[in-house]
């Protein structure tokens, strides 16, 4: 039985449609007939080189899209070679290299284990998937809140929440095994032994195509100093994992260092097959009432377009000191970004934060790269690589961060 009846009625409290109209500032905003992730017609790779405006989320289904390619154009597109081996040095071993159908990967931590986006993303058309950071034992991660938007980017402090390597293998291995897209397991640890043990357990697991070491983790053996900022620790962990597995081995650089080049060189010397760069930049946001830090973990990692210039600079520097492949990461949202990173010496790129706004972006970038090759008359994307690097050795830019503010 109901106790109290306090039924309240109202006069017309709402602000009517017309009055609110008058409050609106008349805006002259050009709605670009856009991109947008809503064109569901799945045409073959690169079929429709479209203009990427990237500046509006307003979906315009009526926008004219480029006409479907003729049979001849399609045949030309199909002939373009987007494949890349990220572990050419492995090629000689029985396990072979790490060959991707195209150079657009999805970045660790932004695409889960490849299954979460379901039918929204056709994962088979990605170059590769880097899964969420995986540790030896399960981790519950950091206190919430864990993410917040920042100008042109976001901060995250997930804290490597994951179910542990055994659960990852058991749950996702059988799924990955059925995919033709390679899955690279991102590995984290707090000691060299941790990394080695995770790598051992991944070795030989069907469906695991490679390992990406996330070395932006505190090294308990060295008082919490991150592996990534300590050249000797970076070398040691890379060498130890190299001995533990035949899997293609990628090592991911942190940007939070004064000079990344000695670290990159040490990683190459220790036997890494490729370098991926960069992980997030250390940052902070303040709570709305300004009484504390916003994130439960205080500090977070900055990602998104805001970090692209930093990532470009690091790729540019590293490309001049190592000869193993470099996979660029940091703020990729468009074909122009992909081409910039290739020009600075990367052979492939990973897309991270941009997936959250535009889950279909990585697949579309592959198509756009193919179309760009055709437009330029190239039969592979290789001519795009390294074009912006200094032409002579000993150029001042080869010396690293040197600028006069």
């Amino acid at each position, binding site marked *: *039985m*109901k*106790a*109290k*009846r*306090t*039924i*309240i*009625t*109202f006069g*017309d*409290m*709402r*602000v009517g*449609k017309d009055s*609110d109209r008058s*409050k*609106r*500032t008349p*805006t002259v905003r050009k709605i670009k007939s856009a991109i*947008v*992730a*809503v064109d569901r017609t799945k045409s073959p790779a690169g079929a429709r080189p479209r203009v990427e405006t*990237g*500046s*509006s*989320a*307003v*979906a315009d*289904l009526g926008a004219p899209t480029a006409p479907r390619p003729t049979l001849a154009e399609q045949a030309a597109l199909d002939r373009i070679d987007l494949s890349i081996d990220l572990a050419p040095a492995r090629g000689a071993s029985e396990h072979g290299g790490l060959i991707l159908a195209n150079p657009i990967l999805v970045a660790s*931590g*932004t695409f*889960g284990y490849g299954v*979460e*986006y*379901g039918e*929204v993303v056709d994962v088979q058309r990605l170059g590769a998937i880097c899964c*969420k950071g995986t540790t030896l034992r399960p981790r*519950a*991660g950091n*206190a*919430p*809140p*864990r*993410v917040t*938007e920042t*100008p*042109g*980017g*976001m901060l*995250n402090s*997930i804290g490597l*929440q994951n179910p542990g390597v055994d659960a990852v293998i058991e749950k996702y291995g059988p799924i990955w095994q059925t995919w033709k897209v390679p899955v690279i397991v991102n590995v984290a640890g707090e000691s060299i032994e941790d990394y080695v043990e995770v790598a051992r357990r991944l070795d030989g697991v069907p469906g695991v195509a490679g390992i990406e070491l996330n070395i932006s983790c505190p090294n308990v053996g060295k008082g919490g100093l991150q592996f990534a900022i300590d050249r000797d620790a970076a070398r040691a962990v890379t060498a130890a994992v190299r001995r533990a597995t035949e899997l293609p081995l990628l090592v991911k650089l942190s940007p939070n260092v004064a000079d990344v080049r000695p670290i990159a060189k040490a990683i190459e010397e220790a036997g890494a097959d490729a370098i991926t760069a960069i992980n997030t930049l250390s940052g902070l946001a303040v709570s709305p009432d300004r009484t504390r830090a916003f994130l439960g973990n205080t500090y977070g990692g900055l990602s*998104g377009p805001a970090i692209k210039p930093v990532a470009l600079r690091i790729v540019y520097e590293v490309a001049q000191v190592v000869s193993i492949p470099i996979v660029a990461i940091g703020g990729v949202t468009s074909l122009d970004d992909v081409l910039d990173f290739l020009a600075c010496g990367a052979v492939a790129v990973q897309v991270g*934060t*941009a997936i*959250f*706004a*535009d*889950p279909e972006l990585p697949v579309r970038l592959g198509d756009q790269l193919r179309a760009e090759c055709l437009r330029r008359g190239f039969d592979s994307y290789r001519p795009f690589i390294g074009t912006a690097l200094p032409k002579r050795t000993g150029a001042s830019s080869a010396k690293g961060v040197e600028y006069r503010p």
Partner: protein
Amino acid sequence: MTMRLVAAELVDSRQILPGQWLQSFHAPELASGSRAGQFVHVRTGDYSGLVLRRPFSINTADPATGIITLHFRMVGRGTEWMTRVREGERLDMLGPLGRPFEVDPRSHHLLLIAGGLGMAGVRMLADEAIRDGRGITILFGALSASHVYPSSLLPDEVEYVVATDDGSLGHHGYVTELVPDYEAWADQAFACGPQPMLARLAQLAAGRRDRLGVAKLGRKRGGGKSDPLGSAAARRKSFLQVSMEQTMGCAVGACLGCTVIGVEGPLRVCREGPVFAAEEIAWPASA
């Protein structure tokens, strides 16, 4: 319905309360495929460096007209941008996302408790319950009369009870203070609003069995083997379900950015939630 990317056309946009907007979108896939409690992740213009979508509860969904509505407060640049979208323009929405409210088929009386913008979280459940012939009471709390959700936007069948912090309309005090009057009448309760409100409701719900005696409850639910925490069956048997909020990245379960702390570990609001049984959440002790 499985989630998908949908181009939702804005057909109506109005300010229903100071700073609060109600927008209607033509999105037939969402209107017929969503259940109360679910949400959409809306892409905003990135002209000003906004890199994340914004999550919104589906406020109402009408399969007959293909219209869904969203109710939001203009709190930042993303929502400000949305208020300036013009009729006829289409927004990119990912949805429907998350798990819905679970109503026990035997429940006749549903109590909905909303604080402020929390109305958007439970609003659609009122429509579903009326369609299914259940009795509905909404308890609504706001700062003052000028922030009270207009009754004209609620179905006639709903009993609407208001509390304001300053007493300018209805009960003078918190909406949670109205709950004891309804806890015997209600078979299930569903809430959305600020965290302290939800924590207080969880506390009230936990003591309810003792206050009312288990006889009635034993007959209606409970008994038998218990369903795993977090399962739809367990949620249906729980007196109180809450719709939680958290800042989000992906909204599909991929980034682990949106967690709240559950009694068995972190829970993703976008995937295990946004609706949870009150027992699943590790409420802060201070509540």
